[in-house]
């Protein structure tokens, strides 16, 4: 066996000279013996190898186009076996590489290892450093998520300001006048082809020259020389293990690299920041307002890099070397300080819900501005995390359409509703859960069913509610208008909202018809509800009857709304309440109430009653009803004579002529009705 192996090696050697090459590679003399301080260069090689290996496997799953980049990274991150780990290692190793570069560079300058005859190798090292930074810049964009997109956008906008050819450079870099498919194909070609290819070439030169000159021993040499193999190699390998191990730990600890929501060219991500090792540049730029920016972005960094290239020649003399070390210290110290300052500025407010008054900062305009900027940053970051989580959950639940992940964002009432409501509705309407429990569903349902259930059923129902898992995205956050001039729309179309209209206190509150300047305060509906409760001769008993009747009506209307809530009870008992409710609406109520009136005396309900004096209750608050209402509240079906200031948002058949197009209208209505995808829609039995 051994003979066979030797035979194969000899055969190979006679044709390739492999023995000599291996000997050359491994038996390099290390003056003064192996030392830990010599491991940094080989650590960088290991880091790069890690990037090549993980990068190639990522490449096998990545697809560079605006409709597939985020989507394929989503798939890597959330669906592929260990994809999150692969991507995490690639991500964190890139940071590690920058740290190692800084150490390697600092050590070479400190030791004066750039002196003749090693000047050229120092220059090669700097070129390698620039290539690595280029790799990290181009890699940041590839997931095509909000963070990478907007951070890179700021970077390329800066590039466009470069003197003379800036505009052309930007166009060539992004493959057109705005970001698109070709930005990704170009960045990817750079990231996976040109830059690593050049890196390999320059690395080969760097190592070749390194071997030619030998390493720069730490003086004075105390120990006898040793060979690279195995003494230094052992230390190098231990260091490699430590570095890769550290990256693996961070990857597992953080559950891999972040993937924010799909890039949205129309929605700026205010918390876009470059990768942490570029933060110092970002912070540095803040010192150069307006036209001065080219100084911060090009001239000064350009001069610094030029100085770095000249270090070997400046460092030929002792004072020159001291100057180099001083410059190095200033650069590293300055970058560290700027990085800390950037983080501090962003996190000044502490939390997105903080207020300036509580912050304890001196009340100056500068402090207020800084605080507000930080608050904007933290809010944008929180919103982005929220949106990212939502879109990933949607992708898992319903899959990504061929148009890409961004369509998930734009077609989701849960994400779009609040934005659209703020834009179109919130200047009049409030969207706020009420103390009476328009807020908490479980409490409300318990309350709503109270009079109808036998005690046995009651406890069974409560059991069911107690076991109910509140799924994610169960309800939307409040959007508060403290002085509304129209009804509160929170929980619209659910049973409790319906019953609120029949509650004398609630209907008269600012949340329904008692808002500022309401023409309905003395209207028929208000009078009807108030009198139904007040003018009650037999007092409490009958009041209960009225209550029960109203509850049944609200149940019936909830069914009318085709309420998209899975809590709609399907028991025989509930069905019969709703049936009774319908009977009450079409006339039965007249027997319960003193006034002898029922709903259809004013409202239309299916075949009963007439249009004209009050809104149609047929399909009340159903999707179509709401859409028609918002299209034109003054339509015959709604408030032909008594509409209070609500604009007709979409009265025309041609959507181009409307304030709201059909899609937007649908999104608003779905959101108001709570009709959005809840990926963990589960009610436990």
């Amino acid at each position, binding site marked *: 066996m051994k003979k066979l192996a030797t035979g194969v090696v000899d055969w190979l050697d006679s044709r390739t000279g492999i023995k000599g090459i291996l000997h050359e590679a491994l038996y390099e003399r290390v003056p003064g013996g192996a030392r830990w301080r010599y491991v940094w260069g080989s650590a960088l090689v290991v880091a790069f190898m890690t990037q090549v290996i993980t990068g190639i496997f990522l490449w096998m799953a990545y697809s560079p186009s*605006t*409709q597939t980049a985020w989507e394929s990274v989503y798939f890597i991150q959330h669906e592929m076996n260990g994809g999150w780990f692969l991507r995490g290692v690639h991500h964190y190793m890139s940071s590690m590489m920058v740290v190692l570069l800084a150490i390697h560079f600092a050590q070479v300058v400190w030791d004066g290892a750039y002196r003749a005859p090693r000047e050229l190798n120092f220059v090669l090292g700097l070129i390698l450093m620039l290539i690595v930074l280029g790799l990290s810049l181009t890699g940041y964009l590839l997931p095509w998520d909000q963070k990478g997109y*907007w951070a890179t*956008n*700021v970077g390329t*906008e*800066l590039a*466009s*300001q470069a003197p003379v050819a800036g*505009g*052309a450079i930007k*166009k*060539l870099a*992004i*493959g*057109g*006048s*705005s970001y*698109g*498919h*070709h930005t990704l194909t170009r960045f990817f070609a750079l990231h996976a082809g040109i830059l690593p290819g050049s890196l390999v070439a320059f690395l080969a030169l760097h190592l070749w020259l390194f071997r030619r000159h030998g390493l720069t021993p730490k003086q004075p040499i105390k120990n006898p020389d040793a060979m690279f193999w195995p003494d230094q190699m052992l230390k190098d390998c231990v260091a490699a293990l430590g570095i890769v191990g550290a990256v693996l730990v961070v990857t597992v600890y953080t559950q891999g690299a972040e993937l924010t929501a799909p890039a949205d*060219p*129309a*929605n*700026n991500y*205010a918390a*876009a920041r470059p990768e942490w090792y570029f933060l110092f540049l970002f912070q540095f*730029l*803040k010192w150069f*307002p*307006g*036209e001065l*920016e*080219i100084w911060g972005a090009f001239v000064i960094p350009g001069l610094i890099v030029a100085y770095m290239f000249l270090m070997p020649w400046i460092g030929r003399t002792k004072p020159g070397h001291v100057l180099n070390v001083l410059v190095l210290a200033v650069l590293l110290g300055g970058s560290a300080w700027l990085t800390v300052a950037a983080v501090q500025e962003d996190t000044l407010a502490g939390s997105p819900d903080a207020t300036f008054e509580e912050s304890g900062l001196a009340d100056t305009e500068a402090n207020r*501005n800084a605080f*507000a*900027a930080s608050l*904007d*940053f933290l809010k*944008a970051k929180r919103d982005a995390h929220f949106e990212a989580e939502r879109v990933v959950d949607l992708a898992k639940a319903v899959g990504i359409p061929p148009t890409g992940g961004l369509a998930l964002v734009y077609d989701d009432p849960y994400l779009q509703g609040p934005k659209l409501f703020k*834009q179109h509705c919130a200047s009049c309407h409030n969207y706020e859960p009420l103390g009476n429990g328009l807020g908490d569903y479980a409490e409300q349902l318990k309350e709503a069913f109270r009079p109808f259930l036998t005690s046995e059923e009651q406890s069974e129902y409560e059991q069911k509610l107690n076991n109910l898992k509140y799924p994610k995205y169960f309800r939307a956050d409040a959007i508060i208008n403290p002085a509304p001039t129209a009804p509160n729309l929170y929980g619209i179309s659910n049973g409790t909202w319906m019953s609120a209209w029949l509650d004398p206190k609630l209907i008269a509150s600012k949340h329904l018809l008692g808002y500022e300047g309401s023409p309905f305060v003395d209207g028929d509906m208000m009078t009807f509800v108030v009198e139904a409760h007040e003018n009650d001769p037999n007092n409490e008993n009958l009041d209960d009857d009225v209550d029960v009747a109203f509850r049944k009506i609200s149940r019936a209307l909830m069914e009318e709304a085709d309420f998209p809530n899975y809590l709609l009870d399907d028991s025989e008992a509930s069905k019969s309440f709703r049936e009774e409710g319908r009977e009450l609406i079409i006339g039965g109520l007249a027997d319960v109430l003193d006034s002898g009136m029922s709903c259809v005396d004013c409202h239309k309900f299916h075949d009963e009653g007439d249009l004209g004096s009050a809104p149609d209750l047929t399909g009340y608050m159903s999707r179509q009803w709401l859409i028609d209402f918002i299209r034109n509240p003054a339509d015959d079906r709604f408030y032909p004579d008594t509409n209070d200031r609500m*604009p007709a948002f979409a009265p*025309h058949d041609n959507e*181009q*002529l409307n*304030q709201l197009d059909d899609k937007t209208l649908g999104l608003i209505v779905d959101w108001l009705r709570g009709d959005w995808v809840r990926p963990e829609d589960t009610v436990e039995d």
Partner: protein
Amino acid sequence: MAKKNKSKKMSESAAATETSSGADRRSFVAIVAGGLAMMGPIGAGVWSFLSPLFRKSSPPEVRVALLDQVPADGRPYFFPVVSDRKDAWTQYSQQKVGAVYLIRQPGEEIPTAFTAKCPHAGCSIGYSADEEKFKCPCHTSAFALDGKRVNGDEEVSPRDMDTLEVKLNPIEVADGESVTEVLVTFVDYQTGHKEKHPTS
């Protein structure tokens, strides 16, 4: 005849240096030929690589709002700019390509349009209603309601907010009423310069 002699003479006189100068000449030709050979593929690549520089596009005229949606109260109203857009091979119909603020002073008929893209680094400018200021979240640029920088040249933004050309387009709707569309010529301006330059 003379010519022949001359050339013969020349070759004789060059005979001493024949080896070195001939090798030089061949090296030179080799480099040129090899270089030329590579120019083919490189040229083909560079030619197509440069194509973004030769593609021109004209800014779209977009309907951003109806005039009714911009009351003449001196307050800014935010509207997305939705337009057809082509990205390499993908044709997007009606995509959000940017956003504008429309402001109409009391008595004015035509609103002023500001693009929401910050002239500093291209972030999207927000509006703070309680401070009555436009504020960019990225590098804290602030603009007054007329688009002027709050701190003038001290501001990080090199110029005031970019205005866009606005046109009004009245349309007769079927029932005899008419609505007025607000059309904006949506130009994407380069950031970072004192002057406005379109990106394409």
